[in-house]
C-alpha cells in the first residue's frame, strides 16, 4: 500500500499544460526522485504534493486519505526549498523552531527538538547566528533542520543542492541520504541532475513536457529506457532509426538502419515494440559502442570523423556509411581521424524504444 499516491493529476498555467495526467505512488520509507529537464513540471508536481498549488483535476492521497484540497499547513510535510526560504529576520534557532512554535509546543520541547535537529545537520552551537552570517552550505543545513524538526510525515526537496558548488554538493548529497535513511523518513526529491538522482534515489520517475515518461530504479532507467525522451535525457545515447525486416512473430529481430542501410540483430521482447514497416528507434550508450573488436554480430564498417579528448574518457565519432555513432573509449592510442575502423553494436546493449 503506497504512502502517497497521485492519481491523474493535471495542472495548467494559462494555456501551458505544466503537469499532464501524472499518476505515481511513493512507498513508506522510499527515497523517491522526480527527474526531468527544467520546465518539465516536476517542481509543480512537488508543489501540488506540498499543497502550494492546487491540481486542476485528479487527486492526491496520503495514507489513503484524500488531501487534494488540504492547505499546506495542515499536511505536516517538511519542505526544503531551492532558495532555502530561510526567514531573514529570525536566527538559526528561531528558524528551526518556527514549525514547532506554530504547533504550540512547550518551551522545553522546542529547545530539545531544535537542538537535536541542529545536531543532526552538524550545526550545533549555531543557534544565535543570523542568516546572513551563514555560508551557502550552512544555510542549506538550516533549511533541512527546519524541515525535519517538525518530524514530517513526508519530506519534500525542491532541487536543494543546486545552489551549492560542485564539491560541496557531492558531500552534502551523501550526508542527506544518510540522514533521511537514519530517521526512516519518506522523501520526494526533485532535481534536473541525473547523477544526483541516481546517487540519492531508490526509485525515479522521469518527467518530460509535463508527462511522466518512465519510473523505475536508477539502473533500469539508465540501461533500459523505454522512451526516446528518457533515453536522450538520461546521459548520452546513440539513437538509431531503423525498420524491422524479420517476421514479427519471432523474438529474433532483424532491423535495417535507415541511415547507412546496415543490418542489426537484437532480441525483441514485446511484439508491439517493433511493428513491421514502421520506423523505430534503437538506442545504445556510447560506452557500449566498441571499436575495432572482433565481434561476430552487428559489426559495421566505418571511418573515424573526430576524436574529442575529454579527460578520463574520450569521445570518438564514427561515420558508418552515413550512420553517425559516438563511442566512449578510455584510450585513443592507435586511433586517427579518417582511419577506417569497425564498430560493434552488441545485441545485449541495443534497446528498442517506444515511439
Amino acid at each position, binding site marked *: 500500500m503506497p504512502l502517497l499516491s497521485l492519481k491523474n493529476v493535471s495542472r495548467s498555467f494559462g494555456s501551458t499544460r505544466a503537469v499532464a495526467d501524472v499518476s505515481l505512488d511513493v512507498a513508506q520509507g522510499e527515497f523517491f526522485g522526480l527527474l526531468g529537464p527544467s520546465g518539465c513540471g516536476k517542481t509543480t508536481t512537488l508543489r501540488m504534493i506540498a499543497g*502550494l*498549488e492546487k491540481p486542476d483535476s485528479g487527486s492526491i492521497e496520503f495514507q489513503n486519505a484524500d488531501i487534494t484540497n488540504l*492547505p499546506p499547513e495542515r499536511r505536516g510535510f517538511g519542505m526544503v526549498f531551492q532558495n532555502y*526560504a530561510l526567514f531573514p*529576520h529570525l536566527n538559526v534557532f528561531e528558524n528551526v523552531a518556527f*514549525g514547532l512554535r*506554530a504547533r504550540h509546543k512547550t518551551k522545553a520541547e522546542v529547545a530539545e527538538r531544535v537542538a537535536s535537529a541542529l545536531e543532526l545537520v552538524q550545526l550545533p552551537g549555531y543557534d544565535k547566528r543570523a542568516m546572513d552570517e551563514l555560508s551557502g552550505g550552512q544555510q542549506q543545513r538550516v533549511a533541512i533542520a*527546519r524541515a525535519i524538526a517538525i518530524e514530517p510525515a513526508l519530506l519534500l526537496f525542491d532541487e536543494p543542492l543546486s545552489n551549492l558548488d560542485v564539491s560541496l554538493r557531492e558531500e552534502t548529497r551523501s550526508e542527506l541520504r544518510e540522514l533521511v535513511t537514519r530517521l526512516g523518513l519518506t522523501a520526494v526529491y526533485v532535481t534536473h541532475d541525473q547523477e544526483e538522482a541516481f546517487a540519492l534515489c531508490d526509485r525515479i520517475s522521469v518527467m518530460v513536457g509535463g508527462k511522466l515518461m518512465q519510473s523505475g530504479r536508477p539502473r533500469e532507467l539508465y540501461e533500459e529506457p523505454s522512451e526516446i525522451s528518457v533515453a536522450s535525457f538520461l546521459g548520452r545515447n546513440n539513437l538509431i532509426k531503423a525498420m524491422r525486416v524479420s517476421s514479427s512473430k519471432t523474438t529474433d529481430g532483424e532491423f535495417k538502419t535507415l541511415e547507412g542501410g546496415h543490418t542489426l540483430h537484437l532480441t525483441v521482447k514485446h511484439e508491439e515494440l517493433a511493428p513491421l514497416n514502421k520506423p523505430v528507434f534503437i538506442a545504445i550508450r556510447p560506452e557500449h559502442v566498441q571499436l575495432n573488436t572482433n565481434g561476430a554480430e552487428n559489426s559495421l564498417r566505418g571511418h573515424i570523423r573526430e576524436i574529442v579528448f575529454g579527460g578520463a574518457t574520450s569521445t570518438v565519432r564514427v561515420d558508418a556509411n552515413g550512420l553517425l555513432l559516438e563511442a566512449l573509449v578510455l584510450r585513443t592510442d592507435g586511433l586517427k581521424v579518417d582511419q577506417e575502423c569497425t564498430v560493434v553494436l552488441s545485441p545485449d546493449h541495443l534497446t528498442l524504444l517506444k515511439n
Partner: protein
Amino acid sequence: MKADQLKEQIRNYPWASVALFLVTATVLIYGVIYPNLSVVITSLQRAGTWTLANYRELLSERTVIEAIVSSLGLSVGTVLLCAIVGVPLAFLFERFTFPGRRLFAALSALPLVLPPLVGTLAFIFLCGESGILAHGIQNLLALQSPPWRLQGWPALLLFHTYTMYPFFYVLTGAGLRRIDASLAEAARSLGASKLIVLRRVLLPQLTPSLLAAALLTFMTSMASFSAPLFFGGDVRVLTLEIFRARQRSDDVIAVTQTVILAILSLPALIFFQRYEGTRRFAAAAMKGAPRKRVTIASGKARALATTVAVLFAIVLVLPVVTLFVVSFAQEGSWTTQTLPSAYTVANYQRLFSDPYAAEVFFNSVTMSAIAAVAALLWSFCIITLLRRRRATQKFVGEGWRRLLSLLVLIPWALPGTVVAVSIAEAYGKPGSLLGSFVLVGTFWILPVIYFLRFMPLVVRALQASMEQLDPTLEEAAGSLGARAWQRFTRVTLPLVWPGAVAGTLLAFVIALGEYVASVLVFVPANRPISIAIASELRDFNLGAAAAYGVVLIVIISISMVVAGKLERLRS
C-alpha cells in the same frame, strides 16, 4: 460524505478575502467613486434637470478659457524647464564624479520634501520684491525701486522649476543607473560615436523614465495652488479659480471647474499606469553591471563641474536658509534693509506659548496621524487583495485587481483642490451615502481628505516592500504548519513593516503641511498649521510665518531621517 464536503468547502472558502474586499470596496465607494460621481452629476444638472448649460456658460466666459489655457501652458512650460534643468544635471551627477558631487546629490531632492506653502513663503522672502535678493541689489546699486517684482509668469515658472525639477533629476538618474553599461560599450565597439550612443542607445532606454518625470511634473503643476495664490499676479489658473468661486459661494461654478480640472489631470494617470508595466520589464531584463562613474580628468572641466555643483547646492538651500534667518527677525526690523536688522527668538517663544499656535499644531499632528495610521491599516487590506495569492485569486480576478489599483491611485493623481471640492460636494448636505450625517463643517473632513490624498503613497510603499518579499518564505511558513494569521504576523509583517512605516511617515509629513485642500474646507475646530502660516503672512507677521515654516521643516527632516533609516533596515 455530502455534509463533509460542504463543511470542507465552507472551511476553504476565502472568507478573509471577502471581508477584505468589503472593507476595500466600502472605502473606495465612499472616498473615490461616490464623491467624484457627485461632482460630475452636480455639474451636469440645473434645477433638477440634466443639462450641459453649466459647461456652456463657463466655457463661453473668457476668464475660464484663460484659466484653462494658463493652467495647461504653465504645466507644459514647467515640464520643459524642469527637463532642461533636471536631465543634464542627472547625466552630470550620475555619470561623472568630481569634488562637490556628493554635496549636490545629498541636497538634490530637498524641494520635494518642502511643503508647497513653505516653499512659497521662502521664495517670497528670498526673491520677492522686498526679499533679500531684491533689497540687496537695490541697496548695492542705490536704486530708487526694487529691481524686479516677483509676479506673474516668470515667478511661477521659476518657482515651479525649483520645486519640480527633482522629478526629472531623480527619475533620469534612476533610469541611467538601470541601463546596462555593456550596452553602451557594445555600441561603441560596433563603431558608434558617443553622440550616436546617446541618441540611439541611452535616450531610447531612458524614455520611460523621462515620460514618467514629465507626467509627474505635469500633474503636480496642474495642481499647484500656493504659488499662483501668493505671486501669480493676474495669471489665472484653474485651482485658483475654483478657490475663488467657492469663496464667492458659487458652488456650481466651482464644481464644474473642478470636473474640467480633473479631466485635464487624469489622462496623465492612465499614461503613468501604462509606463509602470514597461518599467518593470526594463528592471527585470537588466542583468549586467551598472556603469561606473567616470572621474573627470581635465582640470578645467572639473572646475566647471564643481562650480555647477556648488552653485546648484547653494540655490537649493538658499530658500531654506532665508526662511531660517527671517524666522529670527524682530517684527518691523526688516523694511528696506538687505537682511533684517534685529534678531530675536520671540517668534519661536510665541509659537510655543501662544494657545492658538499650540492648537493648530495639535490639530495638524492629530489629523495627519489619524490619516496616516488609517492609510497604513488600509494599505494592508488592499495589498493583500492585490497580491496574486491562491486564496484571493478565486475571489478577486485580474480585471478587479486592475480596477482596484486604478481607483487607489485616483485621489493621488487628482489635484488636492479636486479632492476637497468633491468631498465637500458629496458630503455637504444630509441625504448622502452617510445618511443624515454632514461631514462638511466637522473636524473629520480634513482627516478624511488627508487620508484620501496620501494613502496612495502608503499603498505604493507597502507594495514595493511586498514585491521584495520572497514568496517562498510564506510558502515555507505554510509548509511548516503556520496558518494564515501566523504567516502574516510572524513572517510577512516583520519583513515589510520598515517600508510600510517609512511610507506612513512620508504621508504623515506631507499631510502636516497640507494647504491646497485644507484652505477650501477647514473650520475653526480643525484649523491646520498651513492656515496659520497663510494668515500670519497676510498680516505681515513675516517672522512668525517663517518660524512656523522652520518648525515644520524640522519635523519633516526628523521624519525623513527616520524613514531613511527604516528603508536601509529593509535592505
